[in-house]
């Protein structure tokens, strides 16, 4: 107990000298992964923008895309980004139960988003717009689908983190995982903003 303050200041000095603790390094490593993901999405966006006129006489985006469902999924994902942040806040206040509840809400909103996306894809396929229909629809499905895969992976990842926290409690390790997960989830929302803007809004305008 007497050592704690001394240890605390020692720890602080290390920070000031530019040393990172392992959790900070993990966070930076994950941040670098996100930047590589940005680069991957940039190639998919570039492909879509270049090929957006290539409908090969088939259905166009303006004809088939339904903006109403997209508005709902936008607000679902935006709200889930907010709730995942609130979960991290609860975690830093050591309120495990609240944190898990906010994470579950985040997951349910994400699942709702995913349901709407699958529903939309099935609707498009029913209308005759598939991955093979034209250059436009190929790039559309790959771009939007890649984001959807990210959301799906995020959902399973979050479930596994919750299970781990229930079993092990809040340790430095599990805390780091929740922090990294919320970063990932905010990132997915940021990508979706550009999907909404460049794919949907510019297509239906």
């Amino acid at each position: 107990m007497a050592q704690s303050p001394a240890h605390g200041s020692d720890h602080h000095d290390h920070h000031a000298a530019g040393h990172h603790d392992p959790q900070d390094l993990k966070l930076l490593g994950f941040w670098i992964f996100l930047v590589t993901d940005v680069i991957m999405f940039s190639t998919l966006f570039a492909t879509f923008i270049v090929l957006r006129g290539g409908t090969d006489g088939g259905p166009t985006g303006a004809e088939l895309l339904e903006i109403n469902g997209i508005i709902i999924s936008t607000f679902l994902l935006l709200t889930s980004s907010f709730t995942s942040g609130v979960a991290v806040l609860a975690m830093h206040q050591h309120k495990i139960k609240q944190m898990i509840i906010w994470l579950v809400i985040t997951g349910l909103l994400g699942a709702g988003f995913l349901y709407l996306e699958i529903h939309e894809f099935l609707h498009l396929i029913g209308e005759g717009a598939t991955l093979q229909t034209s250059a436009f629809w190929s790039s559309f499905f790959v771009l939007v689908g890649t984001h959807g895969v990210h959301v799906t992976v995020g959902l399973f990842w979050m479930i596994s983190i919750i299970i781990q926290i229930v079993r092990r409690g809040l340790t430095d390790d599990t805390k780091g995982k929740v922090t990294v997960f919320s970063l990932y989830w905010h990132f997915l929302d940021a990508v979706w903003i550009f999907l909404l803007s460049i794919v949907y809004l510019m297509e239906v305008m």
Partner: protein
Amino acid sequence: MADHNNAHNSHGGERHDHGSLKSYIIGYIISIVLTIIPLVVVLNDMMGRTATIAVIMVTATLQFLVQLIFFMHVRDGEQPRWNLITLIFGVLILLTIVVGSIWIMGNNSIGMKM
């Protein structure tokens, strides 16, 4: 021990800024407003084509910054900000790929017009 914990918590809260509920709510509200603006413009056909594209891109970029600052806390952390540096690097590559593709492929289609 309880005293120590409290002291540690408040100390940690000040130095390691994880954001507050207030900053999350502000970010959330700004994001909603920045989502509604382009929706209203597009759905009501309020502007010309170029102006609409400009509104969509400006609000999207602003909302991206809101996510970065209010939710992802890109301004926090210790110096040097490696996360910010890698992000700027990523955005540089992103702009090169996207703008470069549009530019080159646009020129190609001009060259192919008959």
